[in-house]
Structures are given as structure tokens and as C-alpha cells.
């Protein structure tokens, strides 16, 4: 770590129409994180500097930003990692509201399209508490660690570079779907949705999302790839496809994302 007494914080100021990087000189305290510096600027130099934050302990996922171009949580990034100068900008994959605050409402809308946790009728009406083994719930626990910081969405090139929000739900929502699909008591089949509107096929496994996840969720390996495999099992099984061709049976019609037949 570099010892510095001041840091020049270049913060992106502006709204959806116009903006620029403005430099603020901030005195560095021991253990200071980028969020501390931004809040210091807010209290002392720019009272209307817009920034989202809540817990300041990497548990709520509010203070996502691009720090020297890399998507990170401001509350978890020691400012001394950067020497005397650091640039802080908003997430680029979402529409800007003001300064460091972006409109992330799309993620919430998509979440509503994913059918919620659905246990079997028998489980639901049973008066007995459920029994599940630790090793069975551990599989989904990793996904449930997600704090919805949307950094994975920000870095995903399908959403960021190609703006294909209409075709692909993005890594966060893939993690959400994995947490439901692999829940030991969930019985709903979300594969038609995965293949359809959720667009799991768009992910080409570059693992950028995994790299930026502050909760260290193995998004690509443990969530997206298994979901791809599930979808492939259902729709692209070569053996079944061969049998269908020879037998001339009814062709499987891909179900749209809105229908979610039970398993």
C-alpha cells in the first residue's frame, strides 16, 4: 500500500444529458475506503453529489460504481490501493440519473418475470416442518449470498456493449434462477423461460461477471453453465433429436418464456 496524505478523487458529475469528471482533493484517513472519500466530498465540497449507499459494510450492494474503470463496491475498496489519484464513475450499463446514481429498475422488472419459489402441493399443505440435508441446501446457499449490487450486470458485455436487455436477463438474474431451479423443494420447470425470454444462450462464458462479484459467487461455473446444461438436456439432446427425426414424431415446439408448465 502506498502512503498518501491526500488523494485526488475524480468524480463523474452530471446527468443523462451532460457531464464531466470533477477533481476533489480529499485528506486520507487510515483505513479509508472510496465511499468514505465520496461522502467526505459530499459533506465538505459538493453537497448535492448524488451517491447511493446504505450499510457501508458490503452487505446491501448499494454503492456500486466504476473505480478506475473497474466495477466495484465503493465501501469495500480501500482508497490507498490507488496511490494519489482515482477516478470514480457510475455503472455504464444502466441509464444515468445523476452523478454516481443510475437507474437500475430494469433488474427489478426482470425479477418479477421469474416465477417465484414453488413447492409441491404436498409440501405446501403438509403440517410437518420440512427436512432437508445441509449438503442439499448448500448448493443454493451460494446463490442466495447475492446482494444485488448489479456489478455483474454492469460488466456483462451482452448487456453493456450490446444492450441486449430485451434478449438476456443477465448474470444476476441467472443466479436468481439457479437459486430457484436448484432449491431442493422447488418443483417448477423454468427451462422454457431460460431458453426463451431469459436467453441463457446469450452468455458466452467469458466469466467477467464472476470476476467482479463482491460475494465471490461462481456465477458462470456454478449458476450459468448448469442452467445451460439443463436447457440443453431439454431441447438439444442429440439422441432424442435423432429418434424424433427417424420416428417422425411430433416436433418439440419451443415454449415461450411466459408459459411455465409444471414438471
Amino acid at each position, binding site marked *: 500500500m502506498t502512503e498518501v496524505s491526500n488523494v485526488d478523487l475524480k468524480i463523474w458529475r452530471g446527468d443523462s444529458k451532460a457531464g464531466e469528471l470533477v477533481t476533489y482533493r480529499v485528506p486520507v484517513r487510515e483505513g479509508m475506503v472510496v465511499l468514505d472519500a465520496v461522502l467526505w466530498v459530499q459533506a465538505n465540497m459538493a453537497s448535492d453529489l448524488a451517491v*447511493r449507499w446504505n450499510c457501508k459494510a458490503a452487505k*446491501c450492494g448499494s454503492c456500486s460504481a466504476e473505480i478506475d474503470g473497474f466495477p466495484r463496491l465503493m465501501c469495500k475498496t480501500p482508497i490507498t490501493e490507488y496511490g494519489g489519484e482515482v477516478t470514480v464513475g457510475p455503472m455504464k450499463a444502466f441509464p444515468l440519473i445523476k452523478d454516481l446514481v443510475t437507474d437500475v429498475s430494469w433488474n427489478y422488472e426482470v425479477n418479477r418475470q421469474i416465477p417465484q419459489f414453488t413447492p409441491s402441493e404436498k409440501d405446501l399443505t403438509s403440517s410437518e416442518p420440512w427436512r432437508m440435508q*445441509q449438503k442439499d441446501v448448500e448448493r443454493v446457499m451460494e446463490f442466495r449470498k447475492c446482494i444485488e449490487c448489479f456489478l455483474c450486470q454492469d460488466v456483462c458485455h451482452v448487456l453493456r456493449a450490446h444492450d441486449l436487455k430485451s434478449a438476456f436477463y443477465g448474470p444476476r438474474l441467472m443466479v436468481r434462477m439457479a437459486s430457484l431451479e436448484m432449491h431442493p423443494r422447488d418443483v417448477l420447470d423454468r427451462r422454457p423461460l431460460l431458453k426463451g425470454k431469459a436467453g441463457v444462450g446469450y452468455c458466452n462464458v467469458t466469466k467477467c461477471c464472476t470476476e467482479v462479484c463482491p460475494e465471490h459467487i461462481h456465477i458462470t461455473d456454478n449458476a450459468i453453465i448448469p442452467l445451460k446444461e439443463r436447457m440443453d438436456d431439454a431441447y438439444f439432446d442429440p439422441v432424442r433429436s435423432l429418434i424424433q427425426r427417424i420416428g417422425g414424431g411430433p416436433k418439440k415446439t419451443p415454449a415461450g418464456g411466459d408459459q411455465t408448465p409444471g414438471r
Partner: protein
Amino acid sequence: MTAYETVEADVLVLGAGGAGLRAAIAAADAGARVLVVCKSLLGKAHTVMAEGGVAAAMHNVAYQDSWEVHFADTMKGGKLINDWRMAELHAKESPERVLELERWGAVFDRTWQGRIHQRPFGAHTYPRLAHIGDRTGLELIRTLQDRAVHMNGIGVHMETTVFKVLKADGNVAGALAYRRSDGSLILYRCGALVLASGGAGKMYRVTSNSWESTGDGTALAYDAGAQLRDMEMVQFHPTGMVWPAGVRGILVTEGVRGEGGVLRNRQGERFMERYDQERMELSSRDVVARAINSEVAAGRGTPHGGAYLDITHRKPEFIKSKLPSMYEQFLKLANVDITKQPMEVAPTIHYAMGGVRVEAESGATTVPGLYAAGEVASGLHGANRLGGNSLSDLLVFGKRAGEAAAASINANSTAARAGIDQDDVDRAIAELMGPVDRPAGESPYKLMAEIQDVMSKYAPIVRNGPELEEGLEKILELHARSKSCGTGGSSTLAFNPGWHTAFDLGSLLVNAEALLRSALERKESRGAHARSDHPKTADDLTTVNYVVEKTTDGMHVRAERQPPMPAYLAEVLTESHARYTPEATE
């Protein structure tokens, strides 16, 4: 006059933490059209910070556990000034609320038999906290959030702050709010309003609370004429981070001690032996917090003024699986590997036991149509909250308040919505806009820092009369100054935190004044309220609560005696194994 949009709802829920979401689900289940209004994004509320678990006597780990023991633990931990009916309902209903959460998709750690695992926690007689690692709050809020957004009757307005509760004919009839993003205004017209807005930790400098915890709900209720109760009771969590300075106050879960962590002073002494020999580190929070405070005062503190919390005797894999976010937090923020080195901890402001006075069964406040649940309400925790009782509180009383609010909707309350006085609306808007009209007035950030300094200095972990008096005087001065405060320089309405902070000040000042006035009245030491000039617990105050009310000549505090406990509960209390916490004030 500034323009505003009008939005209708049957039940308006203020806050989207555990209590707010559970209330919204209950109200929608009962057929009401519900609107949840929250200051931040959905899922970011303070509930995500809850780490240790949710207390429920499911007896999955200790077969001897029962609602009776949980009830007794809660009452004894709260030093008996709790609302006994709330404590009873809470102990009886929390297991069902936890199991219900599991049926909605929540995932908990399991016992070897496949049941929900329960960990030991401070002042709970038996292992009782259902948990998932050390991020139980996140699990709870995510489960409720996903359930709520998939229900038809529930709408959510995010990043929207309510600044006024409106009444018509004495009933709650609506509320006014502004959107953070552009400062536009909304008039909500509703039949009932559920306050679920959390605590007021931002009164203090060192706190585990986020910027949101400015006591808005308490202040709005007070302003609307509702009674507050037990406002002197704020909890110092014994273990907050102390170093580096930037992270001071961030919570270190009690789960560390639940999993075997021990506290030591600079001399390596396990000092809890001197404060609570029987329960040691797992004594109630008030006792452990004061013990650390006393050690530091006696010169036995760590280099940064705290105590060492050590769990290195446990295996690294165990620590990483049971306390993953603590491991991560210390490694990242303090450069400390907790599997190899002890943590440095000191008390941090954590929770408000006091708040709006509510009826146990329904969460109804003393204003018709106004309900409250969760941290903003008072009664369940008395003078000291046990760890884990907060998450169960949210579920049990969130549900009850949501149901009662929905049930209160009828033709009359629907008609009353139309009766909102336009003058009230105009006045409230003018007050909110004040700082924008005088942007160069005193900086709200500076005023907030001053409030925090006053409260930290004059209402600390051990209080005394003269200091409380002096603190009150200073808070009243700050109150006067806040009337002419600006925004810090900018008069933009678009996402202007300076302007928002100016509003938050008003809420904090009501909470601070109520705290100081109530603390002055309670001339004894009990639970979180310790006074060096009245170090003993006064037996005749065991059934007394201090109630705060708005009168024509300002804030008024009076003592009120609780109705006697029914015989069956009194019996539970005397026969239970639950232990009383020793009073440790010197």
C-alpha cells in the same frame, strides 16, 4: 404552490425492511391494495444487516426449549418493563413465522436430522437462532421481497421519502412524500398507514446503522399526535469494529460469540468473568457493552480503545463456513485474518428498543388508522433487546400490523381520504422546501455532525443527570438552528442529498429530544439505560414506562404503570430456568 401527484392506496406501508414487507404481504393477503414506500432501493433496508439469526423456540437443537422459556428470556433480558403481552405473542408465534418463511423459499442451515439449525446467542437460555451462516437478514429480506413483488395487490415506490402523515377527522388519511431522483412530490391518500421505518442510530457518531436510520417513523408519528414509549432505551451493541477509523461502528455479529468467540482485555484476561460469571460472553448485550466500556475506562483497553474478540481457537474451515461475511469483512476492511488474529471491538449504537407506542395484538398506535411494527415500534424488548429477537419481531408484528391495517379499511376510512385539509398539505410542502429556498443557510451535514457529537458526549453508554440536562439544552439549540438550515449550497431538486439531509435532521432531533427527556425522567439504572447518579435498579419502576407526547407547549414525558401480568405469565416467569442479567453499573 408546488405541484404534486395524487396516488391512492388502501394500506400505505412506510419502509421495506422485514416488518414493512411482512406487513404488506399480510395486508395484501387480506385483500387490501397495498403500496410500500421506501427511502432506498428494495432489498437494501437495514434488515440486510442482521447477521446472527432469528429467535424462535422451535426446539430443534435443545428439546427443552419452549415458548415459555423464550418469553421469560425476553422479559428478563428486557428487565421486565417489556409489554408482557407482546413478549407472549412473540414467543408463541415466531416458530410459525420462521417455518412460513421456509415455505416461501428461505434457506436455513440444517441440523444433522435435516431440521432448521439453531445457534446459541446472548441471554437465550437454549440454542434458539435459526440462521444461514451470518447473513440471516439478507435471506429474510430477499424471501419477503420476492414474495411481495409477485403479489398482485402490492406496489412499491422506491427511493421515496415520506415527510408528513396527514389526518382527516382524527384518522390517518394520507401522507406526503418526495422522490429522491427528481424531488417531485406525491400525495398518498390511504385508509391506513403502517410505519415500519426502523430506528434512529444516526443520532450517534459511532453506529452500525446506515444513513437511512434517522428515526423518521417515530418523528412522523409524534407529529401526528401518537404516543412514544421507552425512548430512553437505545442499545449499544457490544461488538462494533473500532479500527481502522473509516469502519468504526460496523457491526461484528454476536454470532462470533455464539460460535465460541471469547473477549479479552489488553492483559489477556477474559474479563467477562467479573461481570457475568455464569454466562460470560453470552450475557445480555447491555451487560457485555458496559463491561467493555468499563475495561477501556480502567485503562485495560486495546490500542484503539476496545477489547479483543478472539475465535482463533476454532478451525479455519469452521470460521469460514459459520462466519463467512465476518471473515471477509475483517480481511478486506481491516487487513485482519480472524482465523489467525483476534478482532478489535467496541460498543456501537445498534438498535432503538423504544419507539411508537403500539397495542400488542394489532400494532395500532394511539392515532386511529396509524400502525407500527418492527424497530420503530416499542414494547417487545423493554430495556434491552436480545440478539435474534429483532428478526422474529419483524415477522410476528409485521404480520399482525398488516392484517389489522387491512381490517380497518371500511367505507368510513375510504371516505375520510377525501377529507385531507389542503392547508396541512401546503404547510408541510412549504416546510420541506424551506432549505431549497435558502440553499446558503447553515450546512445540514454540519448540523447532523453536531447532533451526533452532542448525543455521543451527553447520552453515552453510562449517563448522568447534569450531562443529560446539558445535552437537552444543546439539542434544543440545534433544533432552533435547524429551522433555518440550507442544503449545503445547491437548490437543485434532482437527487440532492444535502436537501434530504436537511429533512432527516428534523426526525433526528425529535428522537434525540425524546431520548434525553425520557432518560432524565428514569432515575435508575435498568438494561440499556445506565445512570452513574442512579446506579441501582428501582423496584418500583419495574412496571413503569415513560411515555412521550406532543402537547401545545412542546414535548411532554410522563410515567405510566403497566397493567399487572396475568397469573399464568407471572408463573412462567418465576418457574422458568431463564436467568436474570446482573446489573453491572458501578
